[in-house]
């Protein structure tokens, strides 16, 4: 009798031990997976940082002046002296790619800053206060969302005239709605959470609630969206500049370099190959960063 009981106790202990071990194994597996995700994210962040620093300091490593023309050296294929070849007026393509990075990035970051701040602010206000304000703001976003972004940019640039600033304004004009929609949706949920209601009862003023209670809760999503948007924006800008709508030659810019390279497709394909490669790699790195950030900051979406 006693021994039996001992035995069942032992069994129970054994079961518990097995269960505990399994649990530990699971949790250590989860830990590992989380760690791997973090490491991956850090790697992509470093890569992205590398590209950004090339964009801002790359011109120092440019072997030639990106604007200097040299007609004895025009349309040269890649060689030791010109690793990426030269273009139709003898400018060094490598130098132009390096210097063009800065121009492309400055615009993208300018646009992101405008879009994220305005979009998030409008979204939070709209979602928090609701009512007629919300309805009006959301109808405005509806109207703006009716324009595919390229089309709207074509409209603005077509009417006011080509130019970099016009293009940036046109794209930003449509793009903020995306952030406003997201921030509004999340704020509308957060507004009814207990901690917000308690803060209201506790006498925290409205700006305080918006900044200290609502904003921190939607920030991770905003960051993920921003990282994912760098690539998209770069593509949109480059596309418009490729159409010759955002250009300000002779300053190097990747999209416009592709446009120039198009005319020399048959004789000097390297002009368009290297400029396009630069856009492609940049967009890819930022997409990878955005994806892995989403994995880290917002795991439920990816499971």
């Amino acid at each position, binding site marked *: 009798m006693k021994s039996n009981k001992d035995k069942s106790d032992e069994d129970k202990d054994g079961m518990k031990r097995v269960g505990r071990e399994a649990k530990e194994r699971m949790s250590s597996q989860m830990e590992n997976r989380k760690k791997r995700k973090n490491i991956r994210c850090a790697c992509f962040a470093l890569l992205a940082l590398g590209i950004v620093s090339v964009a801002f300091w790359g011109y120092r490593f440019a072997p030639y002046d990106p604007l200097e023309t040299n007609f004895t050296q025009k349309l040269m294929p890649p060689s030791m002296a010109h690793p990426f070849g030269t273009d139709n007026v003898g400018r060094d393509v490598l130098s132009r790619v390096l210097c063009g990075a800065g121009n492309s990035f400055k615009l993208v970051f300018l646009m992101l800053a405008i879009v994220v701040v305005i979009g998030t602010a409008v979204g939070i206000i709209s979602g928090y206060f609701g009512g007629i304000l919300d309805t009006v703001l959301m*109808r*405005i976003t*509806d*109207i*703006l969302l*009716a*324009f*595919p*972004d*390229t*089309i*709207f940019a*074509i*409209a*603005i*640039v*077509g*009417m*006011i*005239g*080509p130019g970099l600033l016009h293009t940036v304004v046109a794209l930003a004009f449509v793009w903020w709605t*995306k952030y406003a*929609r*997201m921030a509004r*949706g999340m704020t509308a949920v957060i507004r009814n959470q207990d901690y917000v209601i308690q803060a209201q009862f506790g006498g925290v003023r409205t700006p305080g609630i918006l900044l200290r209670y609502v904003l921190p809760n939607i920030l991770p999503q905003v960051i993920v969206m921003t990282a994912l948007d760098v*690539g998209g924006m770069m*593509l949109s800008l*480059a*596309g418009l500049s*490729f*159409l*010759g*709508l955002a250009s300000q030659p002779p300053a190097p810019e990747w999209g416009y370099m*592709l446009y120039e*390279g*198009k005319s020399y*497709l*048959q004789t000097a*394909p390297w002009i*368009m*190959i290297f400029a*396009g490669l630069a*856009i*492609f790699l940049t*967009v*890819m790195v930022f*997409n*990878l960063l955005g994806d892995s950030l989403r994995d880290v900051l917002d795991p439920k979406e990816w499971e």
Partner: protein
Amino acid sequence: MAKYTAKRLFQLIVVLFGVTFLTFMITQMTPSDPAEMKYVSMGMMPSPELLEQTRQEMGLNDPILVQYGRWLIHALRGDLGVSSKFSEPVLTQMMKKLPYTLELAGVAMILVIAVSFPLGILSAVKKNRVADILIRFFSFFGISMPNFWMALLLMYVFAVRLKWFRVVSTNDLRGIVLPAVALSISMIGSYTRQIRTAFLEELSQPYVTGARARGIPEPVILLCHVLPNAIFPVVTLIGLSVGQLLGGTAIIETIFSWQGIGNMVVEAIRVRDYPLIQGYVIWMAVIYVVVNLLVDLFYQFCDPKIRLNQINQIRIKR
């Protein structure tokens, strides 16, 4: 259903008013004066008095809302002005070019669906196996690929080097191949991903386990049970990518000299043909809005459980 449709139609009217008003306002920002343009196009330099009189006659001194109303009435009758480049009504010009763009967009869309569904399903079924990893890698590749670069590369390889196609596209079956492929590559990437995610979500549902337990063959489960459920997010994506397609055609058409409206508008911008640009923008916006309305109604029609906010969530995630 009827109530919802009515509500959406009302929203559509509000949006269309906004779209036309916004386009009209952008047109007002043009640096040129229509009254002056009228005389310049006739080849004479009008005096300030004559100019003022003409402005009065053309109604350019009326309040902006009155001008908008007048313009809208004309636009509703199909009168969007006369293109200065082609000296033809804008509508005629659009009607001539639009079929080519729709043809290109349609072929690209068919390509996207035909390629991304099999790839997405295969990727979901073989999760974390070699096929899945390869497909994910290539779809990522496609998403990051600028479509204009893709177009140039395709042109270089297949037209310049291999000479399988002409560099300048002819508006026929042979000419459509390269533009359509260039247009669809990045979309294939995002569709494949979306289909994979949707399938994985559905495959973890209990009804799949139930179907497997009953011994239903796997292909039947995938095509008859999972596919109808997984198709919804993809339909939203189709609605949204109409915008991407119409914008994308502008770039792709210029590269391949495809005679659609995208090519037309880029040319119109170059010669400052404002009525034509205006007509283009309005048409594109209207097409986009109407297609997305149809997508919303399709949802309601097929699955009343899905409420509008869920659709919006998918939109926000994009």
